[in-house]
């Protein structure tokens, strides 16, 4: 390593040699950086999992345009919208088809004190084209009242519990005092608020959610005719619906708004965002402490180098060399421990916590930057290295 660094730097790697000379301090410093990385990774992981579960809900749908109430912030918290808007929209040039979507949380009573919350999406059984094909293809089975498609990744289920579910071998479940039959499956998983996903026909939904009227869906989904620009149709819809009580936009725009709202305006997003900031600050403070102590401990050696004719840039390069070494050495265990923690979180919560390459890369660059900031602050102590003090 020393030889490699010597070649890379074109000089002896003093910073590296200083760090490995005091192995206890090096271990403590690396542990500190790794801990800061772990903090940041955990916060980002949970934040990413929240975003992932938001995205997962939108990715169930396949539509060009979504019409929602103007108070839309998330898929589930906006006011209902009049179904008549769908019929109006279908009259607009370029609109090929439309569907009303109903969303509600359904309690699945699995036993004494064991209740799972299923986020339930409901559409007309003929609207299978508005959801992902593997789900839409099962819509025929939903024509029978009180049948649903159930999420095999629902939190708290024993392994393989829903393995054999089919229209021929339905799985009975209790919800709100009613008995439903799962006749098909999907694989999504839980989110922060719900344990899994279910799909039902609008008729079953109306029966299950007695307070919901079919005339007031959560959103309206539209597909445009082949070869017609979605943006053009959106403009036409905005004019045709001529009302300020609806939002007309693409699914992706709705998803982007939801993500932005949840991460910047909702407490959970803000809390985890602060968590990331705290992790970065902890990292900066730890590395600064290590570097500034190291500089203080080596002032005599630095003063000697000054007496020999080394300039300020040489000392700054030593401190930065140490900062980079600490960043790299701290990042590796931080990443590995975080991956282990992610796996544990997934196993316990079923949340989609994944170590994405882009996240690892961003945190690595952030670690280098944080260590460089710490190094910049620590170099101020170099001014205390006066050759005259050596005599």
């Amino acid at each position: 390593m020393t030889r490699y660094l010597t070649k890379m730097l074109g000089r002896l790697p003093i910073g590296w040699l200083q760090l490995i000379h005091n192995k206890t301090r090096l271990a403590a410093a690396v542990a500190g950086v790794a801990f800061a990385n772990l903090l940041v990774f955990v916060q980002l992981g949970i934040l990413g999992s929240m975003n992932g579960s938001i995205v997962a809900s939108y990715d169930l749908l396949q539509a060009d345009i979504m019409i929602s109430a103007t108070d839309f912030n998330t898929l589930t918290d906006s006011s209902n919208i009049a179904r008549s808007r769908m019929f109006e929209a279908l009259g607009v040039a370029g609109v090929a088809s439309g569907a009303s979507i109903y969303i509600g949380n359904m309690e699945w009573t699995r036993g004494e004190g064991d209740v799972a919350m299923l986020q339930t999406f409901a559409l007309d059984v003929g609207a299978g084209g508005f959801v992902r094909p593997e789900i839409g293809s099962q819509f025929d089975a939903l024509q029978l009242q009180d049948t649903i498609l159930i999420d095999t990744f629902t939190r708290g289920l024993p392994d393989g519990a829903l393995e054999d579910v089919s229209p021929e071998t339905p799985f009975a479940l209790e919800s709100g005092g009613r008995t439903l039959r799962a006749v098909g499956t999907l694989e999504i998983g839980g989110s922060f608020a719900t344990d899994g996903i279910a799909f039902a026909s609008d008729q079953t939904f109306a029966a299950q959610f007695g307070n919901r009227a079919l005339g007031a869906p959560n959103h309206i989904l539209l597909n445009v005719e082949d070869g017609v620009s979605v943006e053009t149709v959106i403009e036409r819809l905005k004019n045709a619906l001529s009302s300020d009580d609806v939002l007309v936009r693409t699914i992706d725009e709705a998803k982007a708004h939801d993500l932005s709202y949840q991460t910047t305006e909702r407490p959970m997003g803000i809390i985890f965002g602060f968590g990331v900031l705290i992790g970065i600050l902890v990292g900066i403070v730890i590395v600064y402490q290590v570097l500034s102590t190291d500089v203080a401990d080596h002032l005599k050696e630095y003063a000697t180098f000054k007496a020999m004719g080394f300039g300020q840039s040489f000392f700054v390069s030593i401190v930065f060399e140490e900062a980079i070494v600490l960043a790299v050495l701290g990042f590796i265990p931080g990443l590995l421990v975080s991956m282990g923690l992610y796996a544990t979180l997934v196993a316990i919560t079923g949340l989609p916590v994944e170590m994405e390459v882009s996240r690892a890369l961003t945190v690595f660059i952030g670690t280098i930057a944080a260590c460089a900031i710490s190094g910049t602050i620590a170099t101020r102590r170099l001014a205390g290295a006066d050759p005259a003090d050596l005599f």
Partner: protein
Amino acid sequence: MTDHEVITVSGLNHWFGRGEARKQAIWDLNFSVERGSLTVLMGPSGSGKTTVLTLIGCLRQVEEGDVRLLGKELNGISETDAVQLRRRNGVIFQAHNLHESLTATQNVLMGLQVHGTGDEAQQRKAAQHLLSLVGLKDRMDYLPGNLSGGQKQRVAVARALVSNPEIVFADEPTAALDKDSGHTVVEMLKKLGEERGTTTVMVTHDNRILELADRIITLEDGRIVKDEQN
């Protein structure tokens, strides 16, 4: 300043402390040092000899008077010029001041790397050659913590000499050495003066090496009280 003079000092005064505690340590010094000579600064503790060494070695800021080192005025010198000037000299400290994290060879290498990057293998060869000359052939890869006081001092000497400096400033370089080792080190400095024209200015209490000096300047209370050619 003639071509033969590498250091000229005129009207040099220096103080330590501030306000009422300010005390004059050096009083109106005037002398010059010739190229290739071995000059010894002697005197009792507190006489100001080390202060003079640091002032003429560009290691302490000159407050009053003129000091010309290798043709450069040190009074008011910029940090950049000071750095460049220091690179032309070698310094040997009483307390060795070796870098604890570096081996003997690496410490000596620093004396070469101050001049910038170069062929690392050749630099290493030069460093190890000099370590052999000071009798540390079998200690080249030792860290200072595993060397005796005398061995450390020899590494410090090698570090100061490895880049063929024009002037060597040495503060009690033989203090940690036995008589023979001390004599060997000073003889080496003397030989360098004769062969390469390297000038040595040395602070010492060691009477055993005075016979090798070309000139002995004795200070007392910050003043030159004796200036003898040997």
